[in-house]
């Protein structure tokens, strides 16, 4: 039953995508643009198919329908309800199903949002591109990644359940959907970019249409990446959150190019420049999501969290090749015609800073991509096997990150066109003092070392600059000083500052030690005392847990454990973390107690890690603020710094002079 429903849903989605694609393409070729409107019905059918398939899968998981091979392989009667729902994205086939659902959702929203402009040629191409992407992913579901294959379970069969690491923490139910909403969301701006390239309309019109989509996708991706880091910190016993693992890099790469786009698009809006570059960034972002999916699902690269390989690898590679051929071909063919004349007056200007920013982000993405694929390349070329670990990425990206922090401090106060040194001296003085203050505070509380101190200083500088902009905007516009793209962007900057500080501090000042303690014994590390109280064994339906009780600083008791999952048999540790604003105490149980009751525990003191999660939340909040439409406050010919026209009913502005311009765009 579930199998039939699911397969029917996938078949419906595929058929609707193919028919819709053909219809739209024919309409475009024949220039019967009114026919593109039919795409709405097809989009509805595509969404219907995806929803049907997902409902069938969820139903099968909830009812433990082991006649489905996917449920038999990944489900279990012992899995708790939340993780049972999340089992849908615990393995390859189900994760593609989630991908398809999100993709169909974006397609439906696109055609609804632009329903009045569907006869526009550019929009027709965009819809056709989205339908083509749908065809590929539905095809995967019907072919090698079919989640609805049948299985004849023996009587009394029970599945192994999802990987035990995936059922330890509620974040697992949350992180993949966020990531996919981001990943897949880039399909929309990409499709508009292709539409612009095909129709040759690279004017600023399509930008306005897609800017917000990019921001939404980017926001989800940000949340997804940080939630993934958090999950890995809370669940895997390694006391870290970011290891530059290929899977992490795969999600980080589109984030980098997407971030570059969000900045450089402003140059295009203001100055009409960088059009082809912006199109290329969107194409690169989408291609990188496909490349990342290929890298993590084909088994070409070893990784802790890669999905097991299957026959989807060659297909994903083929799709990546297709995307690359189409986008690179289009840019090579039309790019030169679409470039705009124009020049930037001075490197010392907002647009100059954005160009350096883009250079930095492109370099960042290049380093991450190179480090990720280098072992493969070298093995293919010279038969030598090498590994590229976190230290390479840390060392190579540190100068870029420092440059970006510096730009974050300087760029927001730079005016468009041309700045004088005097302007900078005036506007940056307060932020510079904030940076110096951050440095003094850091050194006063004992922080040492050149690289982290430079990070703290620049973070203070950047944070001061963002705060200054927000305060000025707030003074001018009240609560509206917080919303709109520029002001929301400043809030995002504050989140990034928190992340930078947290990364530098936790990478430089953590303490790590192992202790074998008898019950009642204590050990000290990094200013904290841990007291081992003893262990208990707990029996739960899905696992047997050896739980250690450890008291931190004579206060609360924390309970890291070793779990033996009944279905998997492995012994898997589960850490326990005492979070705090200053430092986390991260406890893991390494060895079960011996005859005397003494157990080996690992204690890691990690400063400022909780700032990462706060920083992520601030970034998400800032993205929301940026999405909130700022007032249309200027006539196009007004100076950038022109004051906001007050609503007619408001009191006339009595203060004769405004201190200084605030960017409101």
């Amino acid at each position, binding site marked *: 039953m579930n199998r039939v429903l699911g397969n029917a849903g996938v078949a419906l989605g595929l058929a609707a995508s193919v028919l819709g694609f053909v219809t739209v393409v024919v309409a475009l070729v024949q220039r019967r643009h009114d026919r593109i409107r039919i795409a709405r019905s097809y989009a509805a059918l595509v969404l219907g198919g995806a929803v049907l398939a997902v409902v069938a899968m969820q139903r099968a998981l909830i009812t433990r329908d082991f006649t489905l091979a996917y449920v038999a392989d990944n489900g279990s009667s012992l899995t708790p309800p939340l993780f049972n729902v999340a089992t849908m994205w615990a393995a390859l086939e189900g994760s593609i199903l989630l991908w398809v659902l999100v993709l169909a959702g974006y397609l439906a929203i696109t055609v609804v949002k632009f329903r009045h402009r569907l006869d526009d040629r550019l929009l027709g191409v965009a819809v056709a591109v989205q339908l083509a992407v749908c065809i590929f992913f539905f095809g995967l579901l019907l072919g090698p990644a079919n989640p609805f294959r049948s299985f004849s379970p023996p009587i009394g069969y029970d599945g192994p359940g999802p990987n035990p690491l995936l059922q330890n923490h509620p974040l697992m139910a949350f992180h993949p959907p966020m990531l996919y909403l981001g990943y897949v969301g880039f399909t929309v701006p990409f499709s508009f970019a292709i539409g612009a390239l095909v129709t040759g309309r690279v004017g600023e*019109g399509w930008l306005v249409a897609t800017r917000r989509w990019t921001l939404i996708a980017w926001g989800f991706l940000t949340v997804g990446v940080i939630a993934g880091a958090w999950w890995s910190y809370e669940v895997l016993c390694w006391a870290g959150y970011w290891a530059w693992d290929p899977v992490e890099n795969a999600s980080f790469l589109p984030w980098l190019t997407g971030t570059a786009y969000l900045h450089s698009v402003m140059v295009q809006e203001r100055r*009409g420049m960088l059009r082809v570059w912006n199109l290329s960034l969107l194409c690169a972002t989408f291609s990188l999501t496909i490349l990342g999916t290929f890298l993590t699902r084909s088994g070409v690269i070893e990784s802790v969290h890669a999905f097991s390989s299957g026959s989807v690898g060659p297909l994903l590679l083929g799709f990546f090749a297709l995307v690359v051929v189409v986008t*690179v071909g289009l840019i*090579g063919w039309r790019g030169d015609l679409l470039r705009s004349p124009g020049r930037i007056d001075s490197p010392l200007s907002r647009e100059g800073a954005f160009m350096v920013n883009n250079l930095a982000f492109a370099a960042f993405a290049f380093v991450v991509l190179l480090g990720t694929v280098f072992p493969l*390349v070298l093995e*293919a070329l010279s038969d030598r096997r090498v590994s590229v670990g976190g230290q390479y990425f840390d060392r190579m990206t540190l100068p870029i990150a420092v440059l970006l922090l510096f730009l974050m401090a300087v760029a927001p106060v730079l*005016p468009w066109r041309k700045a004088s040194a005097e302007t900078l001296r005036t506007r940056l003085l307060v932020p510079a003092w904030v940076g110096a203050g951050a440095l003094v505070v850091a050194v006063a509380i004992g922080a040492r070392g050149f690289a982290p101190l430079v990070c703290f200083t620049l973070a203070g500088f950047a944070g001061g600059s963002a705060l200054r902009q927000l305060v000025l905007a707030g003074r001018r516009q009240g609560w509206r000083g917080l919303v709109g793209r520029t002001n929301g962007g400043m809030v995002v900057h504050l989140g990034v500052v928190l992340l930078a500080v947290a990364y530098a501090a936790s990478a430089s000042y953590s303490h790590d030690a192992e202790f074998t303690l008898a019950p009642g014994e204590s050990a000290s590390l990094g200013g904290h005392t841990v007291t081992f109280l003893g262990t208990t064994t707990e029996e739960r339906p899905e696992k047997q847990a050896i739980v250690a009780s450890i008291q931190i600083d004579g206060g609360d008791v924390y309970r890291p454990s070793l779990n033996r999952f009944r279905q998997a048999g492995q012994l898997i540790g589960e850490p326990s973390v005492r979070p705090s604003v200053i430092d986390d105490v991260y406890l893991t149980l390494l060895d079960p107690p011996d005859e005397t009751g003494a157990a080996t525990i690992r204690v890691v003191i990690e400063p400022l890690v909780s700032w990462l999660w706060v920083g992520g939340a601030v970034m998400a909040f800032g993205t929301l603020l940026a999405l909130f439409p700022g007032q249309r406050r200027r006539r196009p010919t007004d100076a950038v710094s022109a004051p906001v026209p007050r609503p007619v009913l408001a009191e006339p502005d009595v203060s004769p002079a405004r201190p200084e311009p605030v960017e409101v765009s």
Partner: protein
Amino acid sequence: MTVDSTSTVADPPPPPGPPAAPPRAAPSHAARWSAIAVGVVLVGLMAVFVAGLGGDSDGPITASPLDGRAAPELAGTGLDGGTVDLTHYRGSWVVVNFFATWCPPCVQEHPELISFSSRHQAAGDAVLLSVVFNDETANVASFFAAQGGTWPVLVDDDGSAAVGWAVTGVPESVLVAPNGIVVGKIKGGVTADALDGIINDLERQADGG
């Protein structure tokens, strides 16, 4: 003074650009050349991926940096308290088997090792030498008492033998030729027939070459 904030750029599509900008002398092909360059790099990258997808067609023997080198030192206390030294077995094939009682495939391959050992016991042309990998000596002793097996077992308390022999996991068996040179490594469980097959192949190659 600097006129720093007088953008006159209009929002609508027509390219604003400064009106005074002179028309470019020659049309630029920057986008085309960049696209070609990026395309070439990406085609190369995809070729690498295709090669990577080809997969590893490993036989039973895994390549290891130890191959072709003199066997690393392996001597110490045996399970029975006596000394065990690899150099005593020069002249015979030696299968150095790293194992632990907590590892199911090790337990599984044990009967095969017993049969391999008994096949060659009389002739003495091949010897089995086990090394305990991260396990308690007491567990190993009771395991051998219960399961059988009379070949020498080396206790590697500090794991230095495992590092010297580049062991990545258990079970792992390293084959040492009669001349004391490492000829191959088998990751995972082995069977007596497979071991004999490998030894025979190697002997035939040695005779042929």
